């Protein structure tokens, strides 16, 4: 009698699972397939244990051990819930709109709370190559180009700097490789 009830509960759960899955685009996010789960941390096992050792042996039905029905039921419910959350069913979502009253009430609450909140921290100081506003940028770009004297001055200065850099030499005084306690 008891086993019949269990069978019925199992069947109803599997039926619900089947109906949830059928007709939907289904994606199971296995934990081992999740890239975020593969990160090695302090809880990662150093030695990989074969999966067979994890499997719990199937309990032999005996009259002495009472059936753990609530546990099974909760486990099945949990599986059902996880499956339902993993199903991608866009059709079932439908249009969603907040009621006008709730919307305006929430806007009022947010406005009051945001106004009462402390001032945000000052934005980061401008960087070395700070961006200039659009108006200033246009004004700068529309200015007349550099004069020829300035261009010559820049060119000559760069040439002199390049010549000076090319004359830099490393003077060899001692060995670059030093033997360290080599007999």
């Amino acid at each position, binding site marked *: 009698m008891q086993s019949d009830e269990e069978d019925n509960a199992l069947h109803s759960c599997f039926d619900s699972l089947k109906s949830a899955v059928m007709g939907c685009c289904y994606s199971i*996010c296995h934990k081992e397939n999740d890239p975020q789960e593969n990160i090695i941390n302090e809880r990662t096992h150093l030695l990989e244990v074969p999966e067979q050792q994890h499997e719990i042996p199937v309990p032999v039905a005996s009259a002495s051990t009472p059936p753990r029905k609530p546990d099974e039921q909760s486990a099945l419910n949990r599986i059902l819930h996880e499956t339902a959350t993993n199903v991608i069913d866009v059709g079932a979502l439908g249009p969603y709109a*907040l009621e006008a009253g709730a919307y305006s009430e929430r806007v009022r609450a*947010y406005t009051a709370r945001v106004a009462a909140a402390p001032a945000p921290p000052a934005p980061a100081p401008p960087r070395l190559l700070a961006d200039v506003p659009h108006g200033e940028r246009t004004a700068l770009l529309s200015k007349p180009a550099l004069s020829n004297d300035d261009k010559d001055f820049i060119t000559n200065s760069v040439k002199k700097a390049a010549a000076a850099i090319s004359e830099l030499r490393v003077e060899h005084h001692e060995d670059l490789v030093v033997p360290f306690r080599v007999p």
Partner: protein
Amino acid sequence: MVDELRKYLNHLLEKVNGLHCILITDRDGVPLVRAVTERAPQLALRPNFISTFGMATDQASKLGLGRNKTIISMYSSYQVIQMNKLPLVITFIGSDSCNTGHILSLESQIEPFLKDLAAIVVDTP
């Protein structure tokens, strides 16, 4: 806080050519702070448009590729970039020719303000 934040968002709006608005809302599309120019399309500012992102990002997160962070939608004359900062959603709307990478780079500049705003959303019943 709200005035300083709006001023800062307006400053960011000026930095990116073709960006029409920046909205910080909750997942139902209720705005907390917004900086909007007159070129922003009014239909895209409605909560029922913005709230679709909440559902879309939830479903996209089930595709086995990890958590969905940003959805970029390109339209004929606009682009809409929405970022998942749940319980907050950041929405940028710009012209179709606006530099998308430049908009995405604004995320790090808005990020420091989100903690206080998220606390407000969480605390509001």
